[in-house]
């Protein structure tokens, strides 16, 4: 177990180093001189030179790279071009809205995805199963930003039930916070709901076939109890392993969803950073989200190994 964790940690460190290298490379991809692109509007030669110096673009590549890693080591991801603030600070400020959105979306994913998947598995090969699986594949095919717009038309415009956009901080009013997140969270969740329903169904079908379930059933336990006590635990363990992926998909989707619903989160910050060519912010945002994904996966893996000793430590 200890050896597994050490090895897993080492791999994580290597991946994190690579992740930060890739994030760093974004500015190197800019054709021509990134300082000129960043300086933008009416920049004079002096201003461009000032930007070059400020962001170290006048230094050779290896010096820039060393600076980048040295900065990250102390949590410094540089200064944003447009916000007049440290990149790290700007990202952290925007994190709560995105996390809130992801949490609500995650709750929806789990509740809807799991129950739909379980229902489909129990009613395997009936019309219910087919309906759920059809809806699931439709769910993974609809672009989330378009779904968001359609939901706005239906729930905000036609029936005037929910707000068309905007965000209320949790501290301000938990109820309004939830209401403001319902539509965006659902838009964001549908893809994951579809995926989870499909995964749950196949895992459940597999589990239901196994001997211990049959034994339990033979003992005369009611079906729901068998499902809750045994099968569900198995499925839950499997769900834990895909948390990282679901999280990553949500961060991906948040770029467009936060734009559609004007939620002041990380995704919208990234979308505007991209439009304003704020490369330090883009680099920092990429690094932060990827690092979060890597660390979540590390925690998940370790937990998983701890919970399920059958796992091969390899």
């Amino acid at each position, binding site marked *: 177990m200890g050896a597994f964790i050490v090895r897993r940690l080492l791999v994580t460190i290597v991946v994190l180093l690579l992740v930060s290298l890739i994030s760093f490379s974004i500015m190197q991809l800019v054709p021509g001189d990134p300082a000129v692109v960043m300086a*933008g509007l*009416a920049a004079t030669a002096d201003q461009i030179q000032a930007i070059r110096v400020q962001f170290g673009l006048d230094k050779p590549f290896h010096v820039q790279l060393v600076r980048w890693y040295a900065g990250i080591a102390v949590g410094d991801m540089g200064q944003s071009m*447009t916000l007049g603030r440290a990149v790290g600070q700007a990202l952290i400020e925007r994190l709560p809205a995105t996390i809130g959105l992801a949490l609500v979306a995650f709750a929806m994913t789990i509740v809807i995805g799991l129950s739909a998947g379980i229902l489909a598995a129990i009613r395997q090969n009936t019309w219910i199963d087919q309906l759920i699986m059809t809806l699931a594949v439709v769910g993974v095919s609809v672009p989330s930003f378009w779904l968001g717009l359609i939901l*706005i038309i239906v729930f905000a415009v036609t029936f005037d039930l929910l707000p068309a*956009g905007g965000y209320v901080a949790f501290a301000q009013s938990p109820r309004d916070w939830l209401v403001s997140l319902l539509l965006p969270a659902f838009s964001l969740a549908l893809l994951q709901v579809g995926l989870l329903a499909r995964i749950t169904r196949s895992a459940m079908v597999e589990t239901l076939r196994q001997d211990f379930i049959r034994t339990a059933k033979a003992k005369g336990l009611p079906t729901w109890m068998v499902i809750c006590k045994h099968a569900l635990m198995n499925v839950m363990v499997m769900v834990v392993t895909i948390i990282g992926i679901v999280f990553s998909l949500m961060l991906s989707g948040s770029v467009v969803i936060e734009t559609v619903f*004007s939620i002041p989160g990380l995704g919208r910050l990234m979308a*505007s950073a991209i439009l304003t*060519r704020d490369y330090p912010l883009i680099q920092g945002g990429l690094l932060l989200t990827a690092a979060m994904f890597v660390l979540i996966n590390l925690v998940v893996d370790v937990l998983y190994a701890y919970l399920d000793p059958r796992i091969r430590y390899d």
Partner: protein
Amino acid sequence: MTTYRLPLSAGLIVALALASGAALAQKKGGDMIMAQPAGTNTLDPHFTASAAARNMMLGMYETLMAIDENTAPIPHLAEKVSVAEDGLTYTFALRKGVKFHTGKEMTSADVKASFDRFGQLSPEKTTMASVDRIDTPDPYTVVFKMKALDTSFLDRLASPASPTTIIPAEEAVKPVNKTNNISTGPYQFVEWEPDTHLKVKRFDGYAAAPGKAADGLGGKKTAYFDTVTVRIIREASARVAALEAGQVQYVEDVPVLAAQRLAGNAKLKVVDLLPAAQPVMLINSVQAPTNNAKLRQAMQAAIDMKEVMTAATDGNFKLNHSFVYPNNPYFNDAGKPYYSVNDSKKAKQLLAESGYKGEPIVMLTNKDYQYMYKSALVMSEQLKDLGINIKLEVLDWPTMADLSRKREGWNMAASGLAIQPFVGPYSFMKLFWGATHIAFADKDPVLEEAWTRFNKSLKLEDRKAAWTQIEGRMADQAYVFKLGDSGNKLAMTKNLGGFKPYAGAVRMWDVWFE
């Protein structure tokens, strides 16, 4: 000697008494939240050049001169200004007891330091080019000695385009973006997050100018709100939704269709600001094939501005050939014969004379400003009908603005003027010939001569004649296509009292919650 004084005549005193009676209904208090589509990346008091920034800054920042309701310059932090007969000396008597947000009293040393900084840093530092030196004989007197006659000088000191903000001398030594946002305005700085909001609060030590009420950006300004927050909400639908949900009390740039809906809402009112801006199509007259005047004229003759403006503004516009608004004293008809001609026969004839062979013409536009995007889409289709080989390139605004300043790489660029048509011709100086000129032509002797005459003439009639000649020449040579005047739909809660639309900026003083 001409003297501009703060208006306080007997008639006005009567009016003042009446006005103060009405003022009983106005009470202090409330937190005002307004939403606008764009933010600013700088709050530097001398570095502002966008409408969005003006909305955010003009409650905090004040100037020696201000523009009144009709954009005429009036003294503001100065009590009066005297201009010598030869026009080479301007003497400002400062108002006494004006306090900065720090509590320190404003003196001539602060004024001089502010202008020194402006002359070094501001994008409009050319304003100071004709100033030889600034003297401060006593704490309440500032004297500008000019190198040469510059008849637009006071206009430019009053212009909010890039305000000559007065800041404390100790602030004025700081480099760009390093000052503490301190001036003398009715509201003072609280906090600013460039991409989300600016918050200001009422400045209780505010020394209002004498007068009966606010006038343009000057006059006796009263801050009623406890705080004012300017929120940046880029998406039009989200701005509207925020107003409907009561999260904000005032929004700008409401889409026309949404404004119609909001007008039916009992809690809200919609106010038209028309004209608010001028969309234009810049032409690169030094780059082939648009260096060919006949080709430019052919295109000019083919365009139907009504269609272009309808698309660009969703119908919220007025056709106007002039580069100033119709109520401006410099308004003239010199450009009218060339405007929105929509005559395909004439256009084809000019095109044949031009010898155009279908060379590609690069038209730049951007999606950051939707009206620029839409006007380019429609105009490019009209020009394609004429047989012009338009290559439309959609860039982001900073890239486009940058490229359209270069001599090469483009032929046409969709752009717009926000403040210049409002404040008047003097503000076009740098647009035509300076670092950010819109008439991208090599030297044109007719324009140069007329511009010199404009700036050296003391009589309004002579200045008008010079400006009329400039507009006529611009149109005849088709250096820039003026598209029209566009409006801005402002929507607000019905209990917002005292609100008057103003193209200079949104004013959060002399308005209150009823």
